[in-house]
Every structure is written in C-alpha cells, then in structure tokens.
C-alpha cells in the first residue's frame, strides 16, 4: 500500500466530518479554561484552626498590620533538618489504626505514553524559579517563575490590570490564591507569580519589590543574561527558600497505607526534591489551606471539598480528602492523604505520625507486603 493511498483514504474518512469553529465551541473552551485555571490555583487560607496551627490568614493579617512591612531579608535559608539515613519512612502510631500495606519503589522514571522517557514537561533552561515564605512555615508563600517571553499576556474575564515596576501586567484572585503575570525587560521576559496567604495589594507590593538580577535581557536571551530576581527586601517575616538545582530524572518512593476500618491514611515519601514539592503545592486544588507543624516540620494542611465556579454550570467533584505536605529533608517530600475532613481525626493523625528507623522500615516491609523494587509511571500530558 502506498503512502498516497493512505493519505487519500484518511482524507475520505473525514470528508463528511464537519466541526466548524462555532461560538458555542468557543464558549465551551472558555469554561474549560476557567475550570483548569481553578484546578491549578484554587486555595483558600481559612481561619479554621485545625491541629492547633498558625493559620495563614492570621499571618496575612500580621503582615497587613505591620507598620513597616519592608525589611532586609534574612540571610539563613530555610532548610529542613537532614535525615542521615537518606530516604526516610514514616508511619502512624495511633490506637485503632493498622498498617494494611507498605511498599518501596526504586528508580521510578516518568515515562511517556510510548514507553520512552519524556522531556521535561516545560523545558526551559533559562527559567528561574524562586520560592518565598516565613522561615518556620510554608505560608504565606510566593512562587515566582521568570522565563524568556513566549507571547503576550492574554487578558481574561475577572483579570485585574496591574503595573509592576512600570510594566503593565495582569492579576487575579481565585479562592484565596493571588496570581500576577507581566512581561518585564521591554517585553523580552515573562514573570508568573502565585501567592497564598497574602492579599492582592500585598502581592502587588511584593512584585514591585523584586529587583531583576539582570537589568537588560534580550530576546532570545544571551548566554550571560540571568533570569530571576534579587531579594534584598521582602515583606516582614518572609525569606527566600533557595531551591535545589533541578528535578531528578528518577526517584524512590516509600508508601505506607493504614486503616481504622472506616477511613484510610496513605503516607507517601519520595526524594523527588524541593522543586517538585513546591510545584505540586502551586498546582493543588483545595478549598481550605492552613499551616501546621508535623513531625517538627512546617507543613501545609488542605482539604478538598466541593468546588463551583460562579456563573458557570461547571463544578469540581468532591473527593473528601485532607492532605498534609511537607519537606522532610532537603530532598525528601512527604504527602499524607487522609480520607476524612473530620478535624479531630486529622489532628490526631497529624500528631501520631512518626519517623521509622531503617530497621523498623525493613521489618514493616517484611511484614506488610507487597513490595516492589522498580516502577515506571506513565507520565500524563
């Protein structure tokens, strides 16, 4: 069979297939855009005091009430204590809860659908990512991505025009997350900034305080031009948390699942690194956020409930989960998923988490199969 024959036959397959670009289709795309956007950005810092925590709103209020919100940045970066055993493992010591499974997966590689390792999801060697938050908490937090320009900024409904250091940009606020984007360096670069636990004006002030590392960046950028921002001054209490270089191409993971007969808890530890940790948090959809301390480390607690977009028939299903996330070491991140929103139960679970020694972990693995040694995960688009 010739290639021209294939071409002709494929053309014939769809010759009676029409799908004009109608306003209805356009509106459907509009709705989907908003859903996707919220899925990436929804998060509300609430005053629901769970686990005896310092709530993000309170932190924001403190910042708002501070008569001199700008001060010199602290020198020491946030660094969680390094666990000498390398890859940690955790369990839950709580009456009524029993381990139902423990697994260890080594050298997990994210694969494309054809079984081949994909390139990075958003390969951009020039991109500078910076994260800011208080030394002992993960909120309020600001995540900043600075890249070569890839187009102009598209204004959407509900966006608010802003001016950042004399450059026009856009901002929006969805369920407590504030986001800004603008194209500095004469339009040659793009900044995306997302913040939780700060109000809109505070975020705009924060953005205006970012001093570009390089005053001039060409398009495309030259080899010596530097992306990112100097952070000599930040809102009171916040510091920059220097990120480790890059995401690893493979990682290990330890998972422990427990049940009390009604609910379950899944504790997942992996060494995918800091950047993956913060990227995950910026993409989470949830309706309540708060900061907590778990195993002596700053963590976030969020709950996922029903989501609804005002003026739209689109809703986001409730999965009824609560989730704790924290960086346990410089490379190991922990996610604890709890199949319940019950505050007392969440508090008890947060207080009952404990790090295992390697000997304990090995015993747990031996007594609670299954255990795997190598895993390949299909990488979604």
């Amino acid at each position, binding site marked *: *069979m010739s290639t021209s024959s294939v071409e002709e036959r*494929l053309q*014939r397959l*769809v010759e009676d297939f029409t*799908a004009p670009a109608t306003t209805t289709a356009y509106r459907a795309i509009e709705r989907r*855009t908003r859903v996707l956007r919220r899925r990436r950005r929804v998060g509300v810092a609430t005053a629901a005091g769970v686990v005896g925590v310092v709530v993000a709103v309170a932190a924001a209020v403190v910042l708002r009430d501070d008569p001199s919100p700008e001060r010199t940045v602290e020198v020491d970066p946030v660094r969680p204590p390094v666990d000498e055993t390398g890859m940690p493992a955790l369990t839950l010591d709580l009456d009524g809860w029993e381990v139902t499974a423990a697994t260890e997966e080594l050298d997990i590689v994210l694969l494309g*659908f054809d079984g081949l390792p994909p390139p990075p999801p958003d390969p951009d060697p020039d991109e500078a990512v910076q994260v800011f938050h208080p030394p002992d908490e993960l909120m309020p937090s600001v995540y900043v991505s600075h890249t070569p320009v890839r187009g102009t900024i*598209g204004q959407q409904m509900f966006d608010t025009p802003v001016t950042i250091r004399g450059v026009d940009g856009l901002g929006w606020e969805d369920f407590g997350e504030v986001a800004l984007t603008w*194209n500095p360096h004469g339009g040659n670069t793009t900044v995306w900034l997302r913040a939780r636990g700060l109000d809109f004006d505070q975020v705009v002030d924060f953005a205006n305080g970012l001093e570009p590392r390089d005053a001039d960046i060409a398009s495309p950028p030259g080899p010596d031009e530097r992306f990112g921002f100097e952070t000599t001054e930040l809102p009171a209490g916040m510091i920059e948390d220097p990120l480790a270089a890059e995401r690893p191409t493979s990682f290990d993971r330890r998972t422990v699942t427990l049940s009390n007969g009604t609910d379950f808890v899944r504790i997942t530890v992996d060494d995918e690194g800091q950047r993956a940790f913060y990227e995950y948090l910026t993409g989470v959809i949830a309706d309540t956020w708060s900061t907590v301390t778990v195993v002596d480390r700053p963590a976030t607690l969020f709950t996922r409930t029903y989501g609804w977009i005002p003026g739209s028939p689109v809703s986001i299903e409730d999965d009824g989960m609560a989730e704790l996330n924290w960086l346990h070491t410089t490379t190991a991140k922990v996610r604890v998923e709890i199949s319940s929103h019950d505050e007392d139960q969440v508090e008890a679970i947060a207080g009952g988490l404990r790090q295992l020694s390697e000997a304990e972990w090995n015993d747990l693995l031996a007594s609670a199969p299954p255990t795997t040694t190598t895993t390949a995960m299909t990488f979604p688009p």
Partner: protein
Amino acid sequence: MNTAVGSAAEVPGSHPAPVAPTFEELFHERYEPMMRVAFLLVGSRAEAEDVVQDAFARMNLRWSRIDNPSAYLHRCVVNRANDLLRRRRVEQRVWWLHRHETSELDADEIGDALAALPPARRAAVVLRYYAGLSEQEIAEALDVRPGTVKSMLHRAMAELKRVIER
C-alpha cells in the same frame, strides 16, 4: 496586549489576520482541522470534541508562554486522545461500526486498520498522512525522537497493509 479568551460580550470571528495570530484567530483557523485529527484518533465526535476543547483550553491557559501554538495543539490533542484510548482500550474497535452508511468500503477498511494500531502508531499515521506533519513535528507532538517516528511509521504502514490485505 493581545486578548486570549475574552469577555463574555465578545464574539469570536471577523478579526483581520495579523502576523502573530490571536487565540481567537487560531481557534477559527485550527478548530475544525484539529477536530478531524482527533476524530481519526478517537473515532467519536463527542470524544473528539472533548479532546480538542480540552487542548484549546490548556493552550489558552498558557497562551503567553507558548511559542508554537500549532505544535502545542498537536501534542495536547495526541496526549489527550491517548489518555482516552487507554481508558477505553477494550472498546477501541467498536466505534467504526457506527460510522455513516455513506462511507466507502475503502474507508471502512482503513478505519478498521487504523483502529487496530497501537495509539502512538495511530497518532503517527494520522499526523503524517492526514495532517501532513513532518517527522520532526510528529516527534515533538509525540515526545519521541525523529528516528522513532520513522520506525513507528514504518511499522504502522506494514500493519495497515497486513490488515487491509488480509
């Protein structure tokens, strides 16, 4: 400042064609061709619509960061289509039975053969022989090396030939 998906009062269409297309212009230009590509990949109008609208929405979300919208669209459509095919792998041959009765026999044969291909090879064939993409462009859409595309197309053509001549 260009406008991506705009306010509810705006009606897409009738813009003069600038050098760099706006989101609306790209929508008008590429929606139907992408629907046809998606239809060839998933075999159902409703699912093709789902795939393509999702791809446009994802592109809209990142409009200011995409330097090659057409390539991005192809990649999104292929990825979403493959997701969908993974979910209904068992059903993947059924759709062709529901095609219009006006379809020619040849079309049914190639449709069956196409549906029998693994998703990645099917995407390679559709992008190469229907959408007319180069091997380099297909490699970008499928996240594989150009040499892999060549190999995929070679195997796909062999399988198409085997199925049709069976």
